[in-house]
């Protein structure tokens, strides 16, 4: 049940990210000038008849954010009560802390008239919080708890899965860090008004590289170059997983998904420029970026899973008959040693 709830929280956070990106795309960030009230009303009693024009985006975003915050409280409390792994209990607290900080940043950016630094930090922390919700879903999943240890393969006489090794871990981690950096550059571009600093695509002012520069052009150029780096890195990751870990669905599925997502993301990025920043296309570009990040995070976390394995899981890998109880062994170990 906890795992199902964690997936529900992930889904709600995706909607929240979409709602937030619609606010910026519609230039609605200051349509509700006060915070935490809304035109003097309590946020939760602001009459729906007044949710007109851009207020619908901004106030809607605040309500969805409050809902996600409330769900995160439930998640943190649930983890604290029911989760045997101490580190995961504290991770839930950290997720709650980050969503509270995110709310405060959102309020501050309104009260200070959307300064670029605070708005970009708000966007960056949103991605971190989203990653935390996805991580909790992974950590509470049966696959993670079982350690992706391939005991089922042994029982059914299939080849044992290739252990996940260092090159995979570093490639996946690098990809995730690169994607997050690209998202930060994109957020900076968005909140400094540089989204159309280079107005054509795929060329830049009719050339491969801009023939003149400004701060805005530099940021926009960095985002396009970043997209090339990210795409190359993710294609390399996919190729590596396909060649070495083809039999591991916990890696192949997200690797295949990420290739599809990055193709969509590049297309959306191009269309954002060509459509002169159509609000809906622009917003979906933001959401797709978040999905690329968290899919890479899933691969990364799973690639590091074996490094989190403590005694009981390693014992289960050598004694396949004890596989059904290995999960229980993990839970027993985590009570005392904070296992994976």
């Amino acid at each position: 049940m906890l795992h199902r709830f964690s997936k529900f929280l992930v889904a709600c956070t995706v909607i929240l990210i979409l709602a937030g990106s619609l606010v910026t795309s519609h230039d609605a960030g200051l349509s509700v000038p006060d915070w935490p009230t809304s035109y003097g009303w309590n946020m939760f009693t602001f009459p729906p008849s007044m949710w007109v024009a851009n207020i619908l985006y901004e106030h809607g975003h605040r309500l969805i954010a409050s809902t996600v915050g409330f769900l995160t409280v439930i998640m943190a409390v649930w983890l604290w009560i029911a989760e045997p792994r101490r580190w995961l209990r504290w991770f839930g607290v950290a997720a709650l802390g980050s969503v509270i900080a995110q709310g405060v940043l959102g309020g501050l950016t309104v009260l200070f008239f959307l300064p670029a630094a605070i708005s970009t930090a708000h966007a960056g922390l949103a991605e971190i919080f989203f990653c935390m919700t996805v991580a909790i879903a992974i950590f509470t999943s049966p696959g993670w708890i079982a350690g992706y240890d391939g005991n089922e393969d042994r029982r059914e006489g299939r080849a044992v899965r290739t252990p996940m090794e260092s090159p995979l871990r570093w490639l996946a981690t690098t990809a995730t860090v690169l994607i997050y950096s690209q998202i930060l550059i994109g957020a900076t571009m968005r909140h400094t008004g540089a989204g159309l600093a280079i107005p054509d695509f795929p060329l830049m002012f009719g050339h491969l590289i801009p023939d003149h520069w400004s701060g805005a052009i530099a940021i926009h150029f960095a985002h396009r170059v970043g997209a090339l780096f990210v795409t190359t890195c993710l294609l390399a990751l996919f190729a590596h997983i396909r060649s070495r870990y083809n039999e591991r669905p916990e890696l192949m599925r997200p690797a295949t998904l990420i290739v599809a997502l990055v193709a969509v993301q590049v297309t959306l990025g191009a269309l954002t420029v060509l459509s002169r920043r159509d609000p809906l296309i622009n917003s979906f570009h933001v959401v797709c970026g978040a999905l690329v990040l968290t899919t890479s995070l899933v691969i990364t976390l799973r690639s590091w899973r074996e490094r989190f394995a403590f005694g009981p899981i390693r014992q289960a890998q050598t004694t396949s008959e004890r596989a059904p109880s290995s999960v229980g062994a993990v839970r027993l170990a985590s009570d005392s040693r904070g296992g994976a």
Partner: protein
Amino acid sequence: MRLRNTWVGLLGIALATTLACGGGSQETSSTAAKPESPSAAPAGQKVDTATAGDVKGVAMLDGAAPKNEPIKMNADPVCVKENTTPQFQETYEVGSDGKSLANVFVYVKDGLGNYVFDTPTKPATIDQKSCRYHPHVFGIMVNQPLEIVNSDPTLHNIHALPKGNAEFNNGQPIQGMKMTHTFDKPEVMVPFKCDVHGWMNAYVGVMTNPYFAVTDKDGKFDLPNLPPGTYTIEAWHEKAGAQTASVTIGAKETKEITFTFKAAGATATNN
């Protein structure tokens, strides 16, 4: 001690009186010959309307006026209801002749020197009516009250984006709400926007002197009661840019100038 203080005080008054009266007589003797530069006027000098002149003129558009962007107000049913005719931005408002350009802010940019002017106590007003700002372009003096009114049965927020003055963004959710604001620094121009209704925009020029005007639908402007002197007059348009003209007026003289704008991106001329 008291007698000494009395003599010092009388001496000070005599000195101040001499300084105040001495400059005026110089100005009177020079206006008959040629306009005296206002910068020679003593500090704190007020305009003598008996000798003041007038600068008037017209702003024109060279070439066909670009079409103004249509406005879709579907996002707020109240705005749709309040406007029974199609709505357009007011970027290029031209007269019936297709050339005279309205909404050009014309003002004395330089040349007033040490003249001082009373700050009006009567507030200027900007009204949010039918989901548009009225007026679209206007002027106000530093520290003059600006009354902001919401005449619409819907919410607005009034968001000023100055560069030198303090930014503000206030909500007016109820019809009839009023608020008052003052700008404490001169600035040309301060944009206003409504973040709820993204099509709403207006501009205000914050001045240290009362010599400003906005061209009417015939493109005409008038800057009366200008003391004799040489002035830099600037004409500002929200899209076509700004241009300046130098004009010298004598006592009770009227001069006319014409500003000719080209649509955004082209060069402008004046004569």
